[in-house]
């Protein structure tokens, strides 16, 4: 049984290929230094982490969560409060990221405990509302969150002997990629664990799972908390990259929907698929289109005044087109999750 033995490797082949692809993007920078790819590529990595968290909830446990951005926001602000020098905690980058994850898990547990008994659409509405509440809450708690200014400056990653700054985007990118690799490793362990099996069973048929002695409420709560923790880690990394938590409105419904699109386009339920989804969606949004616009402008063809020759404006057109085409030709996502082949 190939499936059983391959479990003992750290990553699956597909995951290795995608992580390897990501790891080789700085090579493009070496070839074409003017592109400065590594800096925006960090966003692909943070988005992938948030989407992997959402994938546990939506893809594996079958709960529709429309408020994942709220957990990213809580993670970003927890990271900000714990690391910024305007507050006494100043725990540093790594502890900040870890504790942000813990805060996210706690928030997910807090939201999930009373609401996870709701079914389908109702839970989606609750998470949607939670997303709005968190934004407003963070905006209005000015004494703590600095309102719309955001908490700044925030620390970059730090390792003994290695310096991280905006001057060294390649190092910084690799630090984030390493965190993504750890997240993928943990997600894969969970996927093949007893807990993962409970999630899949609850998604497929909750009553049948219950009759097998599984407690769906507990399994769902764990999925919700772990998904929230990963989203919070992603949020903390975004905050570190910007050196600011930004304003609460950055973590809006659109961010939740983007994460959902990444999961659906990439391949719902598949770790490899979600990473591919992040590369395609965020890569298009934050890397390809800005660079295309820039080069057209440099070539003197496009200008910001001319809407048609500025590819940046096609962002949402392309998003919509991608979704429609996906649903028509590959409804299971770019990478088939292999739900059916879960062995």
């Amino acid at each position, binding site marked *: *049984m190939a*499936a*059983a033995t391959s*479990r*003992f490797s750290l990553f699956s082949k597909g995951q290795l290929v995608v992580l390897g692809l990501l790891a080789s993007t700085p090579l493009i920078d070496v070839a074409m230094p003017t592109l400065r790819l590594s800096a925006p590529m960090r966003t692909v990595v943070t988005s992938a982490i948030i989407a992997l968290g959402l994938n546990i909830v939506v893809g594996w446990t079958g709960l529709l969560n429309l408020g994942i951005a709220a957990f990213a926001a809580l993670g970003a602000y927890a990271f900000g409060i714990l690391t910024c*020098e*305007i*507050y*006494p905690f100043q725990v540093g980058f790594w502890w900040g990221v870890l504790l942000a994850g813990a805060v996210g898990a706690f928030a997910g547990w807090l939201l999930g405990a*009373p609401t996870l008994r709701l079914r389908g659409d109702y839970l989606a509405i609750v998470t949607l509302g939670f997303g709005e509440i968190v934004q407003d809450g963070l905006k209005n*708690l*000015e*004494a*703590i969150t600095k309102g719309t200014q955001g908490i700044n400056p925030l620390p970059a990653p730090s390792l003994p002997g290695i310096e991280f700054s905006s001057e060294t985007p390649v190092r910084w990118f690799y630090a984030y990629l390493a965190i993504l690799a750890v997240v993928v490793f*943990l997600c894969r*362990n*969970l996927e*093949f*664990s*007893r*807990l*993962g*099996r*409970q999630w*899949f*069973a609850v998604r*497929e*048929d909750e*009553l*049948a*799972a*219950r*009759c*097998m*002695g*599984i*407690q*769906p*409420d507990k399994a769902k709560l*764990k999925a919700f908390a772990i998904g929230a923790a990963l989203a919070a880690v992603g949020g903390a990394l975004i905050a570190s990259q910007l050196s600011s938590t930004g304003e609460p409105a950055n973590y809006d419904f659109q961010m939740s929907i983007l994460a959902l699109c990444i999961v659906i386009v990439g391949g719902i339920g598949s770790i490899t698929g979600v990473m591919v989804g992040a590369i395609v969606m965020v890569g298009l949004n934050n890397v390809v289109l800005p660079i295309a616009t820039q080069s057209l402008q440099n070539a003197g063809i496009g200008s910001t005044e001319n809407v048609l020759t500025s590819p940046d404006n096609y962002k949402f057109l392309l998003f919509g087109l991608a979704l429609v085409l996906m649903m028509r030709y590959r409804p299971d996502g770019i990478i088939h999750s292999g*739900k*059916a*082949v*879960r*062995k």
Partner: protein
Amino acid sequence: MSANSSLLSVQNVTVRFGGLTAVKDVSIEVAKGSITAVIGPNGAGKTTLFNAITGVYEPTEGSVLVSGRDPQRSLTKAVIAGAVSTGLATGLFLCLLVRVEVIWRASIIDLYVFQQPFPWMKSIGVFVATLFGGGIVGTWLPLVLGVVLGISGRMVIWSRTRRTPDVVASAGVARTFQNIRLFPELSLIENVTVGMDRRLNSGFIAALFALPSALHERSAARTDAMKLLQFVGLANKSEEAAGNLPYGYQRQLEIARALASRPDVILLDEPAAGMNPTETVDLMRLIKTIRDAGTTVVLIEHHMRVVMGISDRIAVLQYGEKIAEGTPLEIKHDPRCIEAYLGKEELG
């Protein structure tokens, strides 16, 4: 028959849905190591009875004992302690939430001088003092409200989940469903492994870091699952998706999944439905083997050949009431059963 000698004891169970009485005052004793059949016309309340036994429905009246005990989450000290601690946590959280800015200013901002060492002990003292210094509206109202909310919330959840299917399943009752309920997108072997869940005990940390204990448990579980698939004759399809199986095999997979929890009693809801005669004969053999291996069997079935061929005892339901119970021979000659199935003979 006393409750002691029977493994499953259904005592005066009534299930009502609003004005409709689906099951009315039914009592059945299932002896350990026996095969008991529940038969009756469509809509007689057989599946409702199964649902009441397994906790899908709460019986309106009556009780179901498994090995002489009522499988329920009882009001243990752990439940009370859990409720109280939830209440306290909710109370403190609410307290913190309503005045979070005031508390933050007093215990952090006012004490922190930029880049100076922070007086942690003093801060904690101020924090506690401010948290509890909000007077009636600022502290005690949210505290009391939170405690009441937390405790009552936990107690409501406890009272509503006292006898859910997972509790009954953990007492050693497994079942299959009339309208097959497999996990269609999981492979056969995963389906069976899910059935084993109540016997597994690896925890979250072991799972997260793929510690050896979790990996061993996983491979042992898969070996066991493979044996069960062999037992029902599906071993060569172990990696296929359950949803792609032909109908007859799906029923057998459901039986394997139910057996995986090593139940004391297994409830089969129309296991022979949709099977051809050869498959039916195989199924009868399978059910007998299950019984011989020490698992008590209760089944709902319409195929009289199956029912009469393997049952030790038969209970007949009609319009939710038990109209007869006995050995196959007795039932065959019981005028009420003949009437229920074939109708009354017109006289004159």
